[in-house]
């Protein structure tokens, strides 16, 4: 495929190298001639020196015939303008990276729609969600990166004689915002139907909105009320989003940030997080903030070295699980040796997203539900004129072993009922047996 990457900073360079590795034809644009020279020497890409917001440059880069244009310069405004222009000039898909949260909020002004851009991505938000996933349900699939963190897939083991056990699904009167997805018993996994009776020892996946999923969990197992203590070092955009996603619920969150003004902001926006105005890179402070008694320590300041050092200290003090934001690729090899359990790199997070944009069909991404199962979670874009838009959900004649778990329209996630009518531009989250994927592709 033909891909134009606007911006050759850390993010742009890593995306370009990844795309080269996947044998795509890549053009990179940057104002800085040194960066272009550097990227030209290291990767098999075409480099153009110039401003991504100038039509002449975009034209030279060939956005008109590009399958995908990724605007990832360091400036939000440039990314928005150039992605918008690329789309108007003929690029099949245009994606812009933005930092400020306001660009992704559509209450007052819908930037994405106004500028005709397909996706606005926040690296910091995606990274925070990746960290949150590691903290909340290690090993589970969480589709929250699309649904603004509102939608999740949880796996539970039916462990206690609670009131949900021994009943058929249709008798449970589940909230309409929650679906039971798959059911595993005796080594076999299938998509649960209304007649299936829940037994002790079954493994279930539950899909739904964050608030209601816990109610359903309590029907099948009792140990959902243990609070985890999480200490976050660094209150930048990533730390803020992470605290925001985690707070309330099952986590006690402490956020340590050095900058006093930023602390004021954090304290006023995070109602249930304890914000501490101190230097998290100092061991004495980590000790005083009782990092030793924490379940998870997350280092996500803007500085790799600070993150690694704080992580090593936290490990030494006795935190249970250590996570760190590590941007530089050459550090990736050593972090495990230093006792960091889970290192998240913003570049890798964005790379995962970008690879999803490279599909031609309606399926944007496909994730295995769990290791070794034949069920997958699909993200599907509803295309203009597809059969799915012609009837309500109940009348679509979807193949068996398929569950439409959720639909995201204009950034809002919902669990659709039988009378739901899909519209072009909707994103559908479906749970499906692998052998049915081809037939569902035809529907959308």
């Amino acid at each position, binding site marked *: 495929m033909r891909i134009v990457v606007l911006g050759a900073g850390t993010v742009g360079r890593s995306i370009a190298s990844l795309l080269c590795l996947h044998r795509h034809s890549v053009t990179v644009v940057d104002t800085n001639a040194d960066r272009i020279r550097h990227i030209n020497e290291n990767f098999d890409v075409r480099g153009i020196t110039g401003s991504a917001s100038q039509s002449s440059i975009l034209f030279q880069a060939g956005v008109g015939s590009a399958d995908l244009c990724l605007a990832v310069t360091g400036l939000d405004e440039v990314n928005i303008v150039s992605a918008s222009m690329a789309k108007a000039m003929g690029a099949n898909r245009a994606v812009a990276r933005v930092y400020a949260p306001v660009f992704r909020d559509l209450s007052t002004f819908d930037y994405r729609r*106004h500028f005709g851009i397909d996706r606005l991505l926040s690296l910091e938000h995606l990274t925070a969600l990746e960290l949150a996933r590691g903290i909340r349900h290690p090993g589970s699939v969480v589709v929250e990166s699309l649904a603004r963190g509102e939608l999740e897939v949880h796996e539970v083991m039916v462990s206690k004689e609670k009131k949900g056990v021994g009943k058929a699904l249709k008798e449970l009167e589940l909230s309409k915002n929650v679906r039971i997805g798959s059911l595993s018993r005796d080594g076999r996994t299938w998509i649960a139907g209304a007649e299936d009776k829940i037994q002790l020892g079954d493994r279930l996946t539950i899909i739904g909105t964050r608030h209601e999923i816990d109610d359903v969990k309590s029907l099948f197992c009792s140990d959902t009320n243990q609070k985890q203590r999480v200490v976050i070092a660094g209150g930048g955009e990533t730390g803020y989003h992470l605290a925001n996603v985690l707070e309330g619920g099952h986590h006690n969150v402490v956020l340590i940030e050095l900058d006093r003004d930023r602390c004021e902001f954090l304290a006023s926006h995070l109602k249930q997080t304890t914000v501490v105005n101190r230097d998290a890179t100092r061991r004495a402070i980590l000790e005083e903030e009782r990092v030793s008694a924490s379940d998870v320590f997350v280092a996500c300041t803007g500085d790799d070295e600070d993150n690694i050092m704080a992580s090593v200290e936290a490990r030494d003090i006795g935190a249970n699980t250590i996570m760190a934001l590590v941007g530089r690729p050459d550090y990736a090899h050593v972090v495990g040796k230093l006792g960091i359990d889970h290192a998240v790199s913003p570049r890798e997070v964005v790379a995962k997203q970008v690879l999803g944009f490279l599909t031609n069909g309606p399926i944007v991404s496909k994730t295995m539900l769990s290791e070794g199962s034949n069920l997958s979670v699909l993200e599907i874009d509803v295309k203009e004129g597809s059969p799915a838009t012609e009837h309500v959900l109940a009348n679509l004649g979807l193949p068996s072993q398929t569950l439409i778990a959720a639909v995201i329209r204009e950034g809002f996630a*919902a669990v659709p009922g039988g009378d739901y009518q899909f519209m072009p531009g909707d994103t559908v989250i479906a749970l499906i047996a692998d052998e049915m994927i081809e037939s569902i592709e035809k529907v959308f």
Partner: protein
Amino acid sequence: MKFVDFVSREAIRTDIEVDNKEQVIRAMANALLEAGKIAEDQHESIVEAILKREELGSTGIGRGVAVPHTKHPSVKELVGTVAVSDSGVDFDSLDGEKVHLLFMLVSPPDRPGDHLRALENISRQLRDETFCRFLKQSKEPGDVWQLLEEADNNQFV
């Protein structure tokens, strides 16, 4: 876009006495719910969306006025309401003043033009001191409605 095109007469409240931002937003959403303008099962989601918008920057635009708003897929057309609070609500306004007059707007995501025209209308009409003062002094929802109609007929600007 005129006020009467999106403000729900039945949802206007002139007796709002609350302590904080969240409570006033909740009360106004309740009024919309009671007027049948929003669905009961979407009420919480709408309140959360409006509060989330406030996190980006207060919609308290000064001079005792706030315009909390959001887009939400559960509404099929623009819905809005007006609330008056005699004692005022702390709304983190730009000028630090308490808010006495609030316009709430919830609109469907696929009508961005109407949404912007409604917001534009609210801010343009509220530039008029007299209109603003009369609204804040309103004791009955009927008074508010009458003022809105008069504003629609350009009696203030």
